[in-house]
């Protein structure tokens, strides 16, 4: 039998090239996208980022489609969180960060000097790995951002709507004065999602939002992501490949090569990336044969 990983890989590589003469595979660079993202919300072009002297992102270009879930996957340390934080200038809060290239949201470069990063973060909200409600009531957690933004409408209505959208309302509606910290981990994460959407963002970024949650709470957040994608653009970082496959419409695979600079290897429709990746590094990673 000749079914060793190596020989199949070799054969596969040869056939792929024979069958797809139009796709030129260049080592170390991202393959051309197989499908173009029409009318993207976020367009990242040739993005480089340094933490002090250490470069963490190199030449990243990708477009995030509107009202879809986009997943960023890749080994730990490849720059997923760094890239995600570039999408709402959260990296500005880290000292000695230098960014080159552009991140456009609705056509405007958010790194332009005229742009207010606080406004960017209203339009592009974020949910973190560890649920981080404020030590305040459930109601105040949700109302907080809107109050800061000078929201003039019916606050009760706004809080209810955000909690409903975050699939938390039924569980908390009778006790909105309870501390956000008294909720379970999964509920806290949904509260953070409610808080993020209460300011009416266009995009919600989620950095491993389920990694501190049990499977049932994870399932609820995953369902919620699909629902939220009807109104918002979602970008999620996850180390769970099955989760990326379940929730996302598009997937970006990143990798840091020997120089430790994180680069985009492959980006495409999730079903196609997980069934028939074009780059052998993607294949190796998602089949668990990495390294």
């Amino acid at each position, binding site marked *: 039998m000749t079914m060793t990983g190596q020989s199949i890989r070799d054969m596969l590589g040869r056939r792929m090239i024979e069958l797809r003469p139009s796709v030129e595979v260049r080592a170390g660079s991202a393959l051309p996208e197989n499908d173009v993202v029409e009318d993207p919300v976020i367009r990242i072009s040739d993005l480089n980022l340094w933490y002090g002297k250490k470069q963490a992102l190199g030449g990243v270009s990708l477009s995030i489609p509107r009202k879809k879930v986009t997943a960023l996957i890749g080994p730990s340390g490849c720059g997923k969180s760094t890239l995600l934080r570039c999408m709402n200038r959260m990296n500005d809060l880290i000292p000695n960060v230098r960014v080159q290239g552009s991140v456009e949201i609705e056509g405007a470069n958010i790194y332009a000097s005229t742009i207010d990063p606080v406004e960017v973060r209203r339009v592009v909200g974020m949910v973190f790995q560890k649920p981080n409600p404020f030590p305040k009531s459930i109601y105040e957690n949700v109302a907080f951002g809107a109050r800061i933004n000078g929201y003039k409408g019916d606050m009760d209505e706004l809080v209810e709507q955000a909690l409903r959208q975050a699939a938390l309302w039924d569980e908390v509606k009778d006790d909105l004065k309870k501390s956000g910290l008294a909720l379970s981990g999964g509920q806290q994460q949904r509260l953070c999602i409610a808080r993020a959407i209460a300011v009416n963002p266009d995009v919600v970024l989620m950095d491993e939002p389920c990694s501190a949650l049990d499977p049932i709470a994870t399932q609820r957040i995953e369902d919620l992501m699909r629902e939220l994608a009807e109104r918002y653009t979602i970008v999620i970082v996850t180390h769970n490949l099955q989760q990326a496959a379940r929730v996302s419409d598009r997937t970006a695979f990143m990798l840091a090569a020997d120089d430790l600079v994180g680069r985009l290897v492959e980006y495409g429709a999730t079903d196609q990336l997980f069934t028939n990746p074009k780059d052998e590094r993607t294949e190796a990673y998602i*089949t*668990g044969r990495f390294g």
Partner: protein
Amino acid sequence: MPREQFQKGLQDLQDGVLEMGSMVDRQIERALQSLVGRDIPLAEAIVRDDDEVNRTRFHLDNVCLSLLTQQAPMASDLRLIISVLSMVSELERMGDHAEGIGRIVILMQDEPLVKPLVDIPKMATEARRMLKDALDAFVQRDVNSAYAVGQADTVVDDLYDTVYHDLLEIMVRDPSTVESCTHLLWVAHNLERIADRATNIAERVVFTVTGMMPQMDVSRY
């Protein structure tokens, strides 16, 4: 090698497909023997042994199912398992066609042949070669050989044409031969279907390797 257990599971699965393939090939070979030798005990054995083919199919289905649930395969691993699921179903149906020939031989009892067997054995030889080539292409992950299997199907189709017209002529000349001609026509039809299913297996090889689903089915029947 990471995921050694999984790797071994895939290797065993592939071995299982090959084993089942040779089991089915043997059934086709014996079906022809029983026809040529008018060997009714052999034909009965073929019918009995089809159960073994069916059992093997369900066993391999289950192996696929547990690899899918326990290993959450992706990319080429996923394509391999999905392909095996349909390959074993094709093989099982090929086994049914061999069994079908056995049943016709039993039905024919000692009814004299309306014509010497020339093209039917050729069809069997060609169909078995296609099966073997499809399985070789699978093991080698060889897309070009897989496509060649699809091409070979026209040879079987041509032979089927010849058999069909010969038998039709005999029936027209002497209507008392209609029943025995029909028996041979059924045999030829079973062989033609076996060749089509070998082509389906070859299509799955292309999917395993490239992720693309070709339509090789140029069969006229």
